[in-house]
């Protein structure tokens, strides 16, 4: 069971009900639960969207698109039904924040889904959890059933004539790619999770061909808090154009790994050294993957940066999913690059050739290199291969594999060269048969 951690620098908005028994609907109601959605029903969709825009909330899945704007793109009238789709397919390595929301505050996700539905004029929402999260699915299913029993979901909710909302939960069955919004819709429609070409965007043609808002679970869970405190107040907590707080998952070689809720713009170095207690065992920090495995790595000298979408972008990386992975001096970046690409090669759905072939060749080359069979040309080839995947695929999985690979080579080229010279000193972690071949 995930342990909860705490630090004085945290600003608990989203996590304020964690550890309070809020998966129980009565407890959730005691803790101001389902007040925000009633406020939304009273004040109407225009008000909801204007509060969401004022909040400066940006998509917590990783893309950072302004949520209020996304909701406003949905056409007011539509011949086909509109839908809300909550993305709880959380699969980006280094990321486990939605895990704790589903565990501790599932009703916040239900309430957020209802709010999104009211804002866009949808009567139905889907909450999709990755297949591995079965115990969390059961928690969410129970929460949904309780919400129906209390008249929070269903027809004439809160006794309001004509206000209806239904929620269906859904399980995946193991596929990182399904976390991409169009592949997620394909999966929910009972198909292979391959991406759709855009445009049209889901706001116009989405699930079952109807206009659809797709938001990450954390984004959706933020909506009730925003409506309760007011968009402007929420915005003030964060940094410029990056409203509010977010859940940062700090993992790897730190003293106090865990999920911490910090204001947007919080300093990354402080997050690692103060909030998470610094590098484990007092070792030297070598590198940080700042927002899930697809984000370009930062070196120890690049950590004095604010954790928001814009500042991380300026630093040449991404805020991503908020999954911060800390590596100490004993980790070989060649090995880390290989393990990263093994993942993307495994998860590439094969729909787009640059991604399917690119991840495969990167894995082959890095495996050979790792096992001592590499040559000097490989180093440039790895970078060249990765660069040629960029922007050439339907969905961002190709980029997600290429971006970190390029950064590993650019920032840690000397380590690749040390592999060739046989002077590397780092220990090996990987024992996967296919990656430690005969050359070893």
């Amino acid at each position: 069971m995930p342990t909860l951690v705490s630090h004085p620098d945290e600003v608990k908005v989203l996590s304020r009900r964690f550890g309070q028994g809020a998966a129980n609907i009565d407890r959730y109601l005691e803790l101001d639960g389902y007040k925000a959605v009633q406020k939304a029903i009273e004040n109407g969709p225009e008000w909801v969207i204007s509060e969401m825009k004022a909040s400066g909330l940006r998509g917590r899945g990783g893309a950072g698109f302004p949520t209020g704007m996304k909701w406003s793109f949905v056409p007011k009238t539509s011949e086909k039904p509109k839908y809300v789709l909550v993305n709880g397919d959380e699969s980006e390595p280094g990321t486990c924040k939605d895990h704790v929301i589903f565990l501790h505050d599932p009703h916040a996700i239900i309430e957020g889904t209802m709010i999104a539905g009211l804002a866009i004029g949808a009567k139905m929402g889907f909450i999709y959890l990755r297949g591995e999260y079965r115990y969390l699915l059961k928690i969410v299913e129970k929460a949904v059933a309780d919400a129906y029993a209390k008249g929070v979901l269903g027809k004439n909710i809160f006794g309001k004539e004509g206000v209806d909302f239904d929620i269906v939960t859904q399980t995946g069955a193991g596929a990182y790619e399904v976390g991409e919004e169009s592949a997620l819709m394909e999966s929910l429609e009972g198909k292979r999770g391959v991406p759709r070409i855009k445009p049209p965007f889901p706001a116009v043609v989405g699930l079952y061909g109807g206009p659809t808002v797709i938001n990450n679970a954390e984004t959706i869970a933020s909506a009730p808090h925003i409506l309760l405190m007011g968009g402007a107040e929420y915005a003030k907590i964060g940094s410029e154009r990056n409203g509010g707080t977010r859940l940062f998952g700090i993992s790897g070689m730190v003293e106090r790994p865990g999920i911490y809720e910090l204001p947007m713009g919080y300093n990354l170095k402080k997050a690692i050294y103060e909030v998470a207690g610094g590098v484990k065992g007092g070792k030297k920090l070598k590198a940080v993957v700042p927002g899930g495995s697809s984000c370009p790595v930062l070196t120890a000298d690049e950590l004095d940066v604010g954790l928001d979408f814009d500042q991380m972008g300026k630093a040449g990386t991404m805020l991503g999913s908020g999954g911060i992975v800390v590596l100490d001096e004993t980790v070989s970046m060649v090995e880390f690059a290989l393990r990263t690409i093994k993942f993307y090669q495994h998860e590439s759905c094969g729909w787009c050739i640059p991604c399917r072939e690119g991840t495969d060749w990167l894995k082959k080359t890095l495996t050979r290199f790792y096992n001592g069979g590499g040559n000097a040309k490989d180093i440039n080839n790895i970078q060249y291969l990765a660069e040629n995947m960029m922007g050439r695929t339907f969905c961002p999985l190709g980029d997600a594999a290429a971006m970190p690979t390029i950064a590993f080579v650019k920032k840690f080229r000397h380590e690749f060269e040390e592999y060739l010279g046989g002077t590397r000193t780092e220990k090996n972690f990987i024992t996967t048969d296919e990656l430690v071949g005969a050359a070893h």
Partner: protein
Amino acid sequence: MSTVTDSIFLPATAARFDNLVTLYPVKRSALVPMLLYAQDEIGYVSDAVVAEIAQRLDLLELDVRGVLSYYSMLRTEPAGKFNVQVCTNISCMIVGGYDILDHCKQRLGIGHKGVTPDGQFSLEEVECIGACCWAPAMQVNYDFHDNLTPAKVDAILDDYAAGRGEDVK
């Protein structure tokens, strides 16, 4: 009463499937959950499972197989009664995920995707399972076990072997 008269599933599962197909605007949306729930009961997605699910959703068996082959949790061969899935992705790798995997290999005497001769355990090296902050982590069937050490793994596997392990379905 199930809509399929000679269902291969237990009555409760058959009833669940009858209900599942009514929840969505399109019946086919029930396909992925049905495959997984069927696997939970039968142990794997057998030919008979494919045939019945195709019938229930008015799909070709080919459509079902096309979807089945996409999702990594779905399998067409039996696994052990307890499927041990050890994460070795980045957050787990750097805090001992491979030590846990190797310990499981040694203890169970099987490799990746192997099944013990008595059919009790199977082992898989898996990608990120979303327990990064509590790494190293593994799942036994659907149950999460985190902050692992080899000693802790021994105790967990002992529990399952003795029928004391949790088994959420």
